[in-house]
C-alpha cells in the first residue's frame, strides 16, 4: 500500500511560492489561511535555503494525540485528515504541531476562531469523494481523481515531491547521488564549470590570467 509523503528539496526550492498559489487556487482557500507556505532560512546570506512547508501527514501525528474530540483520522494511504463537523476549533492541534500546519479562519466577530483547516494532501475529507460538500469544507479531492497534490505537481523546479513515500525517496536518492555536493550544486562550479587555480576553465577568465 502506498504511503503518501511530501518532501521538499531545499537545494532546488527557489521560493517562487508557486506551490502556495496552486494550493490556494485549487481549494479556494480563504484570505488569511495558508495551508502551505515557503520558509526561507538565512535570507540574503550565502547558502540561503528555502523550503515549502505544510502538514507533513506525520506517522505519529501530535495533532491526533491532543485533539479532545478525536476529529482526526489517518487514511489507509497514511494521509492525516480531520472531520470539520466534529472539530470545535480549540486550537490544541495548533500548539502541538511542529510544522505550524493547522490554520484557523478568523471570520467571526471579536476574532472568533473557526474550525481548523489544514493541508489534506488533496484528499478531501469524510464527505463523498468529489462532491460539492467536500469541496466547500476541504477543497478538491485530487487523490480520488487519480492525481497528486496540486502544489507538488505545479512545482516548476520539482523541489517539492509528493506521492508514494518509497518512490519519492528513490527520486531524491538518485538526485543526491547524481548532483554531488559542495560547488557541484551551488555556485560557480555549477554555472561555469569547475574552477582551475581560481579561474574558470577556458573562456575569458583563463586568458585574463595569462595576459
Amino acid at each position, binding site marked *: *500500500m*502506498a504511503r503518501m509523503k511530501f518532501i521538499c528539496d531545499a537545494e532546488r526550492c527557489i521560493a517562487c511560492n508557486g506551490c502556495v498559489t496552486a494550493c490556494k487556487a485549487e481549494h479556494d482557500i480563504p484570505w488569511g489561511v495558508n495551508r502551505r507556505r515557503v520558509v526561507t532560512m538565512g535570507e540574503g546570506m550565502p547558502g540561503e535555503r528555502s523550503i515549502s512547508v505544510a502538514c507533513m501527514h506525520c506517522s505519529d501525528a501530535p495533532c491526533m494525540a491532543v485533539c*479532545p*474530540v*478525536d*476529529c*482526526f*483520522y489517518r*487514511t*489507509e*494511504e497514511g494521509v492525516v*485528515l*480531520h*472531520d470539520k*463537523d*466534529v472539530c470545535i476549533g480549540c486550537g490544541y492541534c495548533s500548539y502541538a504541531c511542529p510544522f505550524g500546519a493547522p490554520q484557523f479562519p478568523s471570520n467571526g466577530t471579536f476574532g472568533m476562531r473557526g474550525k481548523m483547516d489544514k493541508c489534506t494532501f488533496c*484528499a478531501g*475529507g*469524510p464527505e*463523498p*469523494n*468529489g*462532491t460539492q460538500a467536500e469541496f466547500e469544507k476541504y477543497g*478538491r*479531492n485530487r*487523490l*480520488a*481523481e*487519480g*492525481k*497528486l497534490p496540486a502544489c*507538488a*505537481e505545479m512545482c516548476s523546479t*520539482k523541489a517539492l*515531491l*509528493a*506521492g*508514494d513515500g518509497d*518512490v*519519492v525517496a*528513490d*527520486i531524491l536518492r*538518485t*538526485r543526491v547521488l*547524481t*548532483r554531488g555536493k559542495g560547488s557541484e550544486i551551488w555556485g560557480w562550479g555549477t554555472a561555469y564549470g569547475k574552477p582551475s587555480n581560481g579561474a574558470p576553465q577556458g573562456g575569458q577568465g583563463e586568458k585574463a590570467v595569462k595576459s
Partner: protein
Amino acid sequence: MKPALLAFALALALGGCDKSQTLHSGHASDTPPWDAASDPFVAPGWKAGEKASWESQIRNRTAAQNEYLRTPPRS
C-alpha cells in the same frame, strides 16, 4: 411536611435519570480514493473502484516527478 420533602427528593433523584447524554466525538468514515471522485476531472488511465489500478496510477504519477527520466543526468 415529610411526604412533600420525600417527593421533592425523589423528583431530584429521578431528574438524573434522563436519557443518556453523549458527546459527539470521533470522525465520520471516509470513502477510499479508489472510489473515484464524482467530478469531471478524474485523470484517465485507471479504473474507478479498483484499488490496484489506483495504486498503479499514483505510483506512475509519483515516478513521473523524476525529471531524470526525461532529461539524462549530467555525465
